[in-house]
């Protein structure tokens, strides 16, 4: 089961729950399950069916650019965080 951290700004949807364990192969399955658990979750982090461009997904501290299709391992730790660039 992957550990998925609920962003602080979405904990109003999760009733304050900070993280959940989810069985999933990729980010899309995580997002779908989170949306079932916490209705409205998907709308908050997705645009046109993909992770919003202002966000990125961190899987085991790797900032994946693969969005919804990024693979998740059974023991993975998943975060939704703001996208960062650099100078």
């Amino acid at each position, binding site marked *: 089961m992957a550990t998925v*951290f609920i*962003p*602080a*700004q*979405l*904990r109003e949807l999760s009733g304050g729950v900070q993280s959940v364990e989810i069985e999933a192969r990729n980010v899309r399955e995580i997002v779908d399950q989170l949306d079932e658990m916490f209705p409205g979750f998907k*709308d*908050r*982090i997705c*645009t046109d069916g993909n992770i*919003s*461009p*202002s*966000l990125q997904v*961190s899987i085991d*501290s*790797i*900032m*994946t*650019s693969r969005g919804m299709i990024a693979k998740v391992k059974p023991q993975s*730790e998943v*975060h939704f*965080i*703001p*996208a*960062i*660039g*650099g*100078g």
Partner: protein
Amino acid sequence: MTSTQYRVIGSRPVRHDGADKVTGKAIYTADTKLPGMLAGFVLRSPHAHAKIVSIDTSEAETTPGVHAVVTGKDFPNVENKMADLGEGSVNLAYLSSNCMAQQKVLYRGHAVAAVAATDVHIAEAAAKKIKVEYEVLDSVTWVLDAMKEDAPLLHADLVTDSMGDKAENPSNIPVHLHFEKGDAGKAFEEADVIVEREFKTATVHQGYIEPHAVVADYNEDGRLKIWTATQGSFTARQQTAEVLQIPLGNVLVTPCEIGGGFGGKITVYLEPTAAILSKKSGRPVRITMTRADVFEASGPTPGSFMRVKIGAKNDGTMIAGEAWLAYDAGAYPGGMIGPGCMCVFSCYDIEHAVVDGYDVCLNKPKTSAYRAPGATQVAFATEQLVDELAAKLGMCELEIRQKNAVKEGSRRVDGPVYPPIGLEECLQAVQNSDHWNTPLEGPNRGRGIAAGFWFGCGLKSSAACTVNSDGTINLLEGSTDIGGSRTSIAMQLAEVLGLEADDINPMVGDTDTAGYTDVTGGSRVTFATGMAAYEAGRDLQQQMKTLAADLWDCSADEITVGEDGSFTGGDKTVGFKELATELFQAGEHLVGRATVSPECPTNGFGAQIADIEVDPETGKVTVLRYTTIQDAGKAIHPSYVEGQLQGGTVQGIGWALNEEYFYKADDTMANASFLDYRMPTMLDVPMIDTIIVETGNPDHPYGVRGVGETPIVPPPAALANAIFNATNTRMTELPMSPPKLWKAMQSNQTSE
């Protein structure tokens, strides 16, 4: 420490483009000349905020020598949608109207029209004949004022987005971010000591010496050729195509040599305008910004207001953090608040923390990245509070940092945990350094230290290497070279193949020839494009094994490649060049290629030591001695790593002590020249000593971490701590320029 012995990596060859750059032969964008080329001039708003009532270009259009005039009307309508530009994303409607204003101007310097003529003087004179009628609006340039409910609104349709939750009423706050780790409220109750302060920093500019420049040539067949000063030719191509609403494949961007960027040459400003001028005139058009344009109309980095609080136990353990940050976005949304929030506590393992951040639109140019964007501001706040905590606890400022330094497994405030990192090693290097161990004596003198962090990203890079008949290699890559990256990339290819740096001819390709490559930014080029070159080398070796198997009449599996790049099969061992030549003679020719997209941050940590002296009469700070320490993972070309450390540090010293956008009462910039903006000259700084720490990055074949950005993060904080130690005055505002420091010292004396 990485103990592997390398032949090429770690040496200091002369850069491949060096001779061109010391003889004046290197071609920068403004040096490009095409037959029939016209000169463009951009007319800019004199007002900070105004409605454009009308624009009359008739007189300009009939001026002899003028071939084309453009205004916002010539720009296609673009959708109000976000486009991913490889490194960050941008709203295309905002990008377009930042290139050329539509109904409103949002800052002084905002482009309103442009003219192409046979000579830049004619273009300028004609542009000044364009009659723009403005209805001047109330403006705002201070971030907290811009957040007020009754502030002048820049965008009528802009509402605050709190991670997908949209506010009902419009405001100047496009984004609110909020992070929580643990229970900060409770932790502060349990803290023995709490420090809290408010900080302000001014808008500053990257200050690259080459002004933005572009040449556009719009062919009759719809093909648009662009030569430009950009940190990323592929993102410049995409932005230009999107703004002009033309197919991406119709645009060719050739990156010229680039005269500095530091994050400020990623966004396009002139390209679409030059393209439309070229299309209308049927001639190539070159536009270069004036220095005033660069200050007023490119992308400086955010000014900020910050309130930061840290709580610790009596033993020095930091247990609670809280930060409230408001950063300038400039005229359009999309500032550096995200990384600001993520960096405010990035150096310390604080179990409980809460961070709020606001991106705020105001009547300044749209902000851009500048070396570790958003991180220098928060380090100025946090690193001073850490010193204050140490003082309250009776601890040494180095000891408290060592006690709380993040390490592998520490959790960031935004959630992810760090892989192996090198902050502890950098702090140890401070402790071991000659600088730290040499007492500073004398009146009005002080020493300060500070730590710093920048993520360093991977993103996408490509490389292709063509083997010549003599076994030398032409390396094609797509990273515009701002500081010697051709060589540091070539060195990695040379290392894997067992060649010398000189055996590689690196070339930065254009968007038609090079494989897709993201920007030269994010401290990523030596890391990611270096990795692509390494992988392209491995690809070559793989091909050569297969071909050699035929030649040597054995199977490819029986051939091994040694660490020196030699091939061994049976009783035969030959070097790369020898085998390449042999294969060429046998009719084989070789091209190796690779694309990579590493996704792991490279986590660059550093620490710096500053010795200063304050003139009590004037408040002027003289930097006496400075040491910059950084974990480079593995330094490919140590001179260029040192150069990044020294250059970033001096930019940070300028940010700390002098640089600032001064705004007049009408919210226009008062100091849009190098003389008045006052970047450090050679006379303002001492030698910058460097110590390169090498902890090895497990995610790179040679252990490279990005180094370009972190060095700018600690200087304002280190200097503020030094100033405090010299004067007992805590500076909470940047820049710590003589008038500000003098005033603070006076009020400090009065209050004592």
